[in-house]
């Protein structure tokens, strides 16, 4: 999606507003959204759903509002629930009805160890050998996929140098756009001189971006 979420390099934003001693969650509902998203199953396309928000809505809502939007959009689209059911519960909660609780001790225990020593490493995938090696000059494709893509728009058509090569992982463009289809391929960290991306004169300013093979073509010569 050639949308506003693709923010890298865009101009016209003001200063960065910081907050002292920021808590992980500012409101209890933010933590609930995080927990629902991590432990529920709403179908692939978490980010694509956010990217389909309207530009003004995206810029004027918070991170966890984006998540909430994605859960509802995918939950409805994939038949987990309907908007009418959600709105019915909104009326009941607003009228003071208590929300139900439920327990899955195994899942709760798995969550508690999910960032610990027993955490699983990345899944391994087989794919064709990488086409590029560290040091190769490559060029980013100019025509980006029209759905979800992990190729930032500011790199469109830019030349860079492969800095490192990583073992195959599913291309997330395909995963999100094609309902979870797995297309593993090599991915790379590619270094770009900032002066090749924008009209700048800051020697030594480099931007390093992780791109899948489908985002790159060989630079002739």
């Amino acid at each position, binding site marked *: 999606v050639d949308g506003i*979420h*693709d*923010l*890298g*390099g*865009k*101009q016209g*934003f003001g*200063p*960065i*507003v*910081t907050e002292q001693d*920021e808590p*992980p969650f*500012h*409101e209890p*509902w933010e*933590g*609930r*959204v*995080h*927990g629902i998203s*991590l*432990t529920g199953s709403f179908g692939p396309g978490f980010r694509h759903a*956010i990217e389909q928000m309207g530009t003004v809505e995206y810029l004027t809502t*918070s*991170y966890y*509002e984006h998540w*909430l939007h994605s*859960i509802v959009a995918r939950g409805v689209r994939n038949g987990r629930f309907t908007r009418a059911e959600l709105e019915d*519960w909104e009326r009941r909660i*607003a009228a003071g009805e208590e*929300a*139900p609780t*439920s*327990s*899955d001790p195994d899942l*709760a*225990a798995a*969550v508690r160890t*999910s*960032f*610990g*020593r027993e*955490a699983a*490493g*990345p899944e391994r995938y087989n794919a064709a050998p990488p086409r590029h090696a560290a040091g190769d000059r490559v060029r980013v494709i100019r025509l980006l996929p029209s759905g979800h893509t*992990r190729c930032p728009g500011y790199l469109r058509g830019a030349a860079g140098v492969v800095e490192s090569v*990583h073992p195959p*992982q599913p291309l997330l463009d395909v995963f999100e756009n094609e309902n979870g289809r797995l297309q593993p391929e090599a991915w790379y960290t590619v270094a770009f001189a*900032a002066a090749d*991306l924008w009209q*700048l004169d*800051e*020697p*030594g*300013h*480099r*931007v390093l971006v992780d*791109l899948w093979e489908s985002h790159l073509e060989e630079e002739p010569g």
Partner: protein
Amino acid sequence: MSEHQHGHKRPKSPQQLRTEALEALLTEKGLIATDAVDAVVEVFQNDVGPQNGARMVARAWVDPAYRERMLADGSAAAAEFGYGGYEGEYLRVVENRPGLHNVIVCTLCSCYPWPVLGIPPVWYKSAPYRARVVREPRAVLAEFGLELPGDTQIQVWDSSAEMRYLVLPMRPDHSEGMDEEELAGLVTRDCMIGVAVPRLGVTA
């Protein structure tokens, strides 16, 4: 005011109401378990946060062999402390050196190494940071109070795929007498994002 007087409680925000309704609906349908949601909240409030990354950085400062392992494979170095999991499967540690400074961002979303830094701050997820830091890092760092020498090279890492990044800052001068735990206290979240550098007297 009594809690029991109806109609006098602060009304719920639309986000709170929607979230509570969503959780009730998903619970009713058996699609989530509320105690598993509780567990996620507790993990991020209590266990996972920048204190984890800070311990790794302090270890790297006092143990050159650990530093080498950390730079070679960040995920394995995190696992030595028992940190791992979602958003940390591929962790790369990038090292600041004299004349070279690193800073991390996710321009498309807000990807962040959860197991070692926790939940990202709001500014990291905000449009101004994501838009500006790739293009004008020096100006952004100056806004954070970090003025780098003019000849320092800046590398901005945009975590657009599976890799998550952690900056290994330089150990501050005059910290020779400090032990590992005291050193970890100097390593703030912002130092590991790369918008600050550790300073004596500034603690996490």
